[in-house]
């Protein structure tokens, strides 16, 4: 079958915020009061190759619900849907390069017919100077299933795995997973060819 030529990517540029981060387009809080799952906060910075915070980036996340089911027709898995949970978040970075989300910890989803993946959140980064967006994953430091996760263990080189694993912290009763995204240089985040 003839494949159509794809439309190429271009940078989001410096001026996207009024459109993509307007009040009804950004989405820091993914949960509603009825949403099932452990409440967590995800917090981090985006840094450039000089270690300088990137104040004009946008971070999007996509995740399964607490049962391990994506709110999408392609996911026909046995885990139940949570109709109060879409699983999409979008945050800008502030002047200190910081982004944040309030969400729930996702359940495990299938890797193939036999194996499950460790809980994870898909992370996409856009900014001026990125001609294509970047794709990575956040894994949770306190999950023992990380040791069996096929992507983490078979595809991500051992020396880069730590960049994908968010440590768990507690702040005033809130569970925070810290996930800094380093675009370039020392500690460069492992980005995926997706």
């Amino acid at each position: 079958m003839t494949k159509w030529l794809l439309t190429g990517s271009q940078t989001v540029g410096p001026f996207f915020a009024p459109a993509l981060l307007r009040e009804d387009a950004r989405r820091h809080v993914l949960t509603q009061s009825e949403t099932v799952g452990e409440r967590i906060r995800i917090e981090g910075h985006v840094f450039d190759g000089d270690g300088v915070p990137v104040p004009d980036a946008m971070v999007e996340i996509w995740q399964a619900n607490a049962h391990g089911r994506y709110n999408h027709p392609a996911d026909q898995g046995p885990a139940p849907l949570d109709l109060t949970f879409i699983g999409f978040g979008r945050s800008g970075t502030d002047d200190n390069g910081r982004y944040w989300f309030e969400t729930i910890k996702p359940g495990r989803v299938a890797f193939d017919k036999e194996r499950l993946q460790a809980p994870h959140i898909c992370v996409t980064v856009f900014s001026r100077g990125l001609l294509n967006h970047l794709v990575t994953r956040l894994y949770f430091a306190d999950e023992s299933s990380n040791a069996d996760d096929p992507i983490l263990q078979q595809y991500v080189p051992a020396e880069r795995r730590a960049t994908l694993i968010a440590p768990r912290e507690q702040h005033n009763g809130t569970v925070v997973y810290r996930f800094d995204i380093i675009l370039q240089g020392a500690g460069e985040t492992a980005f995926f060819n997706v």
Partner: protein
Amino acid sequence: MEHTTIGAIIRGDREVFPPYLYEAYQSTRRRAPTLPLIDVPLTISELTGPGPRISAVTPEDADLTRNAGTGGEAIGQRIIVTGRVLDDRGNPVPNTLLEIWQANAAGRYLHKRDQWPGPLDPNFLGMGRCLTNEEGVYRFLTIRPGAYPWKNHPNAWRPAHIHFSVFGPSMLSRLVTQMYFPDDPLHSLDPIMQSIPTEEARKRLIATYDHNVTEPEWALGYRWDIVVRGPYATPFEAEVR
């Protein structure tokens, strides 16, 4: 029917997508990753993605000439920009969210970081959004944006363009890009557009003037189709290595 199954690594976008490091576009130098991207098998995480429910789109959102809500109309050449969102087999992508933003007719963005002395237009916000219909068709009414200067190199000007953000059926189809206008002498001088590696792929970013889209006594018409990666994977039927 041919399927890409979970476990397969699909690539082959290097003729279409720019490199991360493109020296002529200075902002890439400290933001481009230096280590190779990691090839990973596609899983249900990549083969799903947010649907249209992430945004409450109203018909007014697609009219940038009036959506500032001032009661006034934006100044500039009124244009219709329409086209289809297709996957790379030519199938329409229905019911997907498009978000656009652009400079005003004078080339000025309504943004605190845009401080060049082009005039602002109080009746123009420069942002819009819509969902594609069942045939994958989108349509915006706006004004033709102006070119504007930037500080990338001496006497640098961006050609007139409209930024597009597209979701499509899955994480694989997520795309942020820019639509350009035909016959613009600034194209060959613009490092952002020239970062697209082939002439054929650059042409994909340029809209076509279409007199059938033009409405008499009203607006000039441009047609621009967007081709994103399709949802061919068949989850849960994978034979993984």
